């Protein structure tokens, strides 16, 4: 076991993938000498060379489009989108090409492309640097969408994502990049599509992923002091969803609150609520409630503490769930 930050764990995961498979490439803006603005690719270009760690022109559509071409030639590109808000120029290549080309080829083509996206707010940044665009991708058939929440998962999940033969949108909670925890550098083979009980509990189920897992754990700890036993599930994979674990938990607790940073309206939480309600209808003591961003663009940073779900808003919603 080693203690690593999430950024460093991802860096180690990338490094190991590149060592294991010479077809793995890293590409994006400033991923080379700079090591990425969050240093997730730090040192990789020095060790693997400019042909495998590619500083690209400043064009996100170009990054994904050429990554597709490289994948068609047998490479396994790992693309970095510098910030969540800059994925949109690449959305056409992601939605119309990356997601659909395998089906278009009737299975002849595989596109093992990983698109890494630092996501979410809470770092006091300017506009476009704090977005949570996961719902755009979970709604896009043909993509797998995952989000890591801690160093150990980051280390393992990035390697599994690179090993997978499907295109994967890989979300990294940027405000957790500097959080540290124990990582087993020898761990391998964790399935990419399994959720994780981050904290077992009996009274209500909190569903979260990425940055909100920590917030939910804190909320659960606070609630425990008041004698409320909250279960927190870290979904890890958003598409596909580990519905087995989710349904088991909600049926057991009878109540569920979903937490994410993205706007609630047509957000990923809507899918969770709708699906859970359908599958657990007779077990629900209250409707599945959602805590998330408002139906507004992400606000300037001096307002983000109001915008982002925090311990208080989570617990307030938990209370609302118990009020039914």
């Amino acid at each position: 076991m080693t203690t690593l930050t999430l950024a460093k764990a991802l860096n180690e995961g990338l490094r190991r993938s590149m060592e294991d498979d010479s077809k793995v490439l890293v590409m994006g803006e400033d991923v080379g000498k700079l090591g990425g603005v969050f240093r997730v690719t730090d040192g990789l270009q020095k060790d693997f060379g400019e042909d495998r760690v590619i500083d690209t022109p400043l064009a996100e559509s170009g990054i994904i489009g050429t990554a597709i071409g490289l994948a068609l030639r047998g490479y396994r590109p790992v693309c970095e989108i510098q910030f969540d808000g800059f994925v949109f120029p690449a959305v056409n290549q992601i939605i119309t090409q990356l997601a659909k080309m395998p089906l278009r080829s009737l299975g002849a083509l595989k596109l093992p492309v990983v698109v890494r996206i630092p996501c979410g707010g809470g770092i006091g940044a300017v506009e476009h640097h704090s977005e949570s665009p996961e719902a755009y991708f979970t709604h896009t058939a043909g993509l797998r969408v995952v989000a890591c929440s801690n160093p150990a998962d980051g280390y393992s999940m990035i390697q599994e994502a690179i090993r997978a033969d499907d295109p994967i949108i890989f979300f990294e909670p940027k405000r957790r990049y500097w959080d540290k925890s124990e990582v087993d550098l020898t761990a391998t083979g964790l399935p990419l599509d399994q959720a994780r009980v981050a904290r077992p509990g009996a009274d209500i189920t909190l569903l979260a992923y990425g940055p909100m897992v920590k917030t939910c754990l804190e909320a659960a700890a606070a609630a425990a002091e008041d004698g409320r036993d909250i279960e927190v599930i870290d979904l890890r994979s958003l598409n596909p969803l580990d519905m087995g674990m989710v349904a088991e938990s909600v049926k057991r607790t009878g109540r569920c609150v979903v937490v994410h940073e993205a706007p609630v309206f047509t957000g990923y939480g809507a899918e969770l609520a709708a699906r859970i309600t359908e599958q657990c209808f007779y077990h629900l003591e209250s409707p599945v409630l959602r805590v998330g961003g408002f139906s507004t663009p992400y606000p300037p940073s001096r307002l983000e503490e109001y915008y982002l779900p925090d311990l208080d808003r989570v617990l307030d919603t938990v209370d609302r769930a118990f009020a039914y």
Partner: protein
Amino acid sequence: MTSDAPRGVDAPPELVQLLTPEGERVEHPDYDIELTDEEVRSLYRDLVLVRRIDLEAVALQRQGELGIWASLLGQEAAQIGSGRALTDADMAFPTYREHGVAWCRDVDPVRLLGLFRGVNHGGWDPAEHNFHLYTIVIGSQTLHAVGYAMGIQRDGAEAATIAYFGDGATSQGDVNESFIWASVFNAPVVFFCQNNQWAISEPLEKQSKIPLYKRASGFGFPGVRVDGNDVFACLAVTRKALQNAREGQGPTLIEAFTYRMGAHTTSDDPTRYRVADELEAWKLKDPIERLKAYLFKNQLADQEFFDKVDAEADALGKDVRRRCLELPDPEPEALFQHVYAAQHSLLDEERDQYLTYLAGFER
């Protein structure tokens, strides 16, 4: 653009032509081509056969057997010329109109019909033919071609890619980004733009004020305009550009100056936006007629040869038709296949539920 001329940003101002509309062989200082009689005849045969496939597809559409068809009528020389310039190791990235290039890459024509008939979105294995799937989203494939070319570089392979696109496509951000990437990485890629003068109803002036081949100069690589109805010139110019690419001299933009003699697709009605005269003028530049005239004049082929090719074309047309009608409709299970390479629980669930639902009707 000879290989020893400076590979700068200036493209030659004239149309490269090796065969006039009247079938006269002409010389060009930078391009030449040596072809055996047999090769010339086989080029002719290809032109005729792909036109025939195209006509058959249009007819199939008219009869309701295809949902739509994008005709290559008039663009045969651009496609056969460039397509025959490719080596087996080269990789082609087509739009939705490259039936002639597909022919050069040994893709069974019936395979092309699947997507137009609506039985699939693309019916061949790109790796088997080094011919990528048809791409409908304008311009997207140019970036794939550059990425693939970057892979070739990393493999140290002796190969290049060719990216096909239309005049309208030159306006897309992706196409321009692909020029940047190709230039910056010196990627072995040839950009082959068939300027057929129209993007559906929009004439070239809506996309560019200057000749399209000059676009390359803004990105630091050579552009050349070739007579797109001259199969010799298309072959020669593409061959040289591919060779340059393979030798590490980077990308070239080729503008094949040609004409869309038919409608944009079978859904389109060009009488709404263009005058008939234009088509008449271009008919005089027909790519097949000029090669036929050349073969005749130079006694490289007799009537018997032409008749034989026509007969072969007819047989091919019939065969394509027959096999088109035989294309099986996909089963509903196909909805859920090949979406992901690995198992996907959500899709499994949806499939199982849906097939159970469908089974309910059979009872």
